[in-house]
């Protein structure tokens, strides 16, 4: 198996506060890896540090054997890593279609003919999320929470990434929508997309993952296959403090 993403001893934080105290993890090609852990454990910070939204202070991040640790976010997208951020963060004043097209910004011509070139990728996203096709002319801010989440995932997929980071796609969604999102993630996994998923519902995370990391206070407390994690009391402790 080739390794799609490898993080080694990564440290990062904000101003005076180091949040990640040296995190290492490994994602093989085609794998779905989930990160679980309490709030404030550093999962989102880890995602941000990998995708270049936050500059790490030490350590290494390798995307398909290429060091990307010191790169900026736009460079990292170009190298094939997409990050669907926590809280969806769609471009509210822009239309659904514009949001999606911007997802493919790095590989489209920026002045003329970009729509034509994007039509195939766009079609694939609309196939995955028919709701978005119905609403392609609406501004993204008028969508419901679940639709915004679909848009955010679709937008990240538009860049045709080799690795996709998904940060809490189920946050704040109604249970029905959570199911839709989880189904989508399953579908993407079948298509062979390498993914790192942050998920607050541990049970959900365990049920779809190939491999799980438990993050606690900025370090990896535990890792293993879902079946191994299930057996481990430490997970329950991390969540319920038993």
């Amino acid at each position, binding site marked *: 198996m080739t390794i799609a993403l490898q993080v080694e001893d990564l440290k990062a*934080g904000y*101003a*005076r*506060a*180091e*949040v990640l105290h040296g995190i290492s993890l490994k994602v093989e090609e085609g794998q779905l890896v989930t990160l679980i852990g*309490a*709030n*404030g454990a*550093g999962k989102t910070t880890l995602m941000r540090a990998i995708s270049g939204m936050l500059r790490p202070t030490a350590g290494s991040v390798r995307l398909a054997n290429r060091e990307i640790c010191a790169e900026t976010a736009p460079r990292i997208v170009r190298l094939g890593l997409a990050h669907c951020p926590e809280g969806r963060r769609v471009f509210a004043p822009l239309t659904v279609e514009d949001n999606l097209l911007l997802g493919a910004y790095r590989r489209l011509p920026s002045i003329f003919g970009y729509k034509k070139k994007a039509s195939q990728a766009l079609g694939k996203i609309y196939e995955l999320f028919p709701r978005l096709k119905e609403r392609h002319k609406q501004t993204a801010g008028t969508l419901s*929470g679940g639709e915004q989440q679909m848009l955010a995932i679709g937008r990240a997929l538009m860049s045709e990434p080799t690795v996709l980071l998904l940060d*809490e796609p189920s*946050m*704040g969604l109604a249970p029905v929508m959570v199911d839709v999102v989880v189904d989508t993630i399953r579908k993407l996994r079948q298509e062979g997309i390498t993914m790192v998923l942050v998920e*607050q*519902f*541990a*049970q*959900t995370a365990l049920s779809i993952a190939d491999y799980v990391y438990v993050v606690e*206070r*900025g370090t990896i407390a535990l890792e293993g296959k879902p079946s191994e994690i*299930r057996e481990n*009391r430490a*997970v*329950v*402790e991390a*969540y*319920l*403090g*038993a």
Partner: protein
Amino acid sequence: MSIIKMSRSTASLLSELAVLVILAALPLFLGQSGYGMGLLTLLAIYAIALIGLDATVGYLGQVNLGHAGMIAAGAYVAGLIVDNTTIGLFPALFAAGLTGLTLGALLAFPALRLEGPQFALATLSFGSLSVLCLNELESITHGAQGLSINRPPLPGGIPLTASGFYWITLSLLGLVWFASRQLLEGRWGLAIAALRNSPIATDSLGIGAMKHKILAFAFGSALGGFAGGLYAFNLGFLQPQAFGYDLSVTLLLGTVLGGRKSVWGALVGAVLVVLLPNLLSNKPVFLSIAGFGAVLAVVHFAQAIRQNKITFDNVAPLLAMSLLLSIGYFAGNLEEWRKGLFALMLFAVVVSLPDGLVGFIAHQLVHWLRLASPALFIPTPLDQVLPVRQKQGMAMLEATDIRLYFGGVKAVDGVTLSLQHGEVLALIGPNGSGKSSLINVISGLYRPTGGEVSLKGVRISGKGLLAASRQGISRTFQNLQIFADLTAIENVAIAMKDAYRLPWLWVAAGLAKKEDRKAMQDAQSLLVVVGLQDKSNIPARDLTYSDQRFMEIARALAVKPAVLILDEPAAGMSKPDVERLKVIIGAIKERGISIILIEHHLDIVAELADRVIVLDGGKSIAAGSPADVRRDPKVIEAYLGASAAHLVEASA
């Protein structure tokens, strides 16, 4: 190795006196020629104006392009009064200051709601409006033709010479200097800096910073008007166009060049603004000054090369200085280039010395002379600062059927809770379950869609942060809201309830030192509670993350709350710090303060909470002792997702 054993405040007081004495003695050496005296007087006047401008530019941190308008208003009021009545010099000056104060207060209400470019534009248009009015109200001001003013004699008819007027101006500068130090470097300055760092925290601590903001702007404008009055009597002739955009910009740049948040900066800025045009007529002197600046820039750049950190802020000053030197060398008439040379110097200073010349020099002096930093305050006994609250019969806090809807989203959907005296109540629940929204309602940040919150029987919901804080609710924030520019002890002292009672005139007259000291000692006592007593003089921004959280707790205690809300206090803390936090929460509980604790780590909750309420989807799904709640299947489902109950059974 301390060469001079002297505290920073003593050192600055001595040097201030020295400068005033030297300035006062200048006429004796330089002769009392009209031109020289006029220039020196102008220098003192500009210093007063710049101290006033510094109130907005330095302390409020806003770009003020309307100060010339205040000066114009003061100048015309003083001039017209003296020309048309028999009122003397001092009442006319007083009226000039009062004009500035009034205009400043009027302008403050709309302008201070604005920030950044909008504030700059509002003040810019005020400046233009005043020039326009002065030009057009010809029947009073004589418009563009100008207004001649005869300098009135002193009381008793004693004629006022040029040097006499200079000495008067200088004494007034001394007074203004003293008063603004008292006001702006004391509690006002702290409150305003706090407001800049976090408006939410200032309100939730009951500091009432808007009042300080308006006062600071009005005070600065009053000094502008006052300086205007002096200007009128110094020059004896007023024309509206002298007070246009150019003067505002010149003053603004003088403040920035000299150094913000500093009376010394105002003086240095005034010297530069007044002397620069005269300096330009002497090419060799100008070239040597420019050369000195260029050498500094080269040194700065060389250091950057050595550290391999070549960035814009060390390349740009070098370019600006080289340009300055070459224009100085090649230009035929330097005065033609006055604006350009001024701009280049300013550019270099703004980019490389954000604290201005004085800030830079002061920093170096403190470093070289190793001036002692202030001693730690002796803490007041804790029982005096935070007396143990006696038990009362009724519930401390009662929240009934709280609902908070954002459009269609029901963030909180009918939660009821009550909090007893000295009780620790934990709120837990997954992300987005409504915990933060609920405490934002309780602390007064949000007005609930429905329901009511009352504290000791008094309704507080829907009345805002400030009201809730006055009633005795205090909180910390999940995303830290520290006053980064203040030291740890200042963070706490500025929030101290009932500490600052004296009116501002007393403060300006320097009669409030005792009150200030008391607040600091009380604050030190609260820092002892959270274990930061040795770090009290460290700027909050330089504290570690955990210490910043502890400082926020001490600051919340300064409000002397009945109910303390701690929003995820352990987030991001290391294990030892979490242990320290537990001890602190225990100590607070012992003072009879009720605590609402939002926390994700259930081990902390288990150890500290008397009762737990579990929220999910905006509703309370379980309540009871920590042990009960942990076994509740609904809670397990909410945290782990459906059908996870076997996990807990397996581990139990």
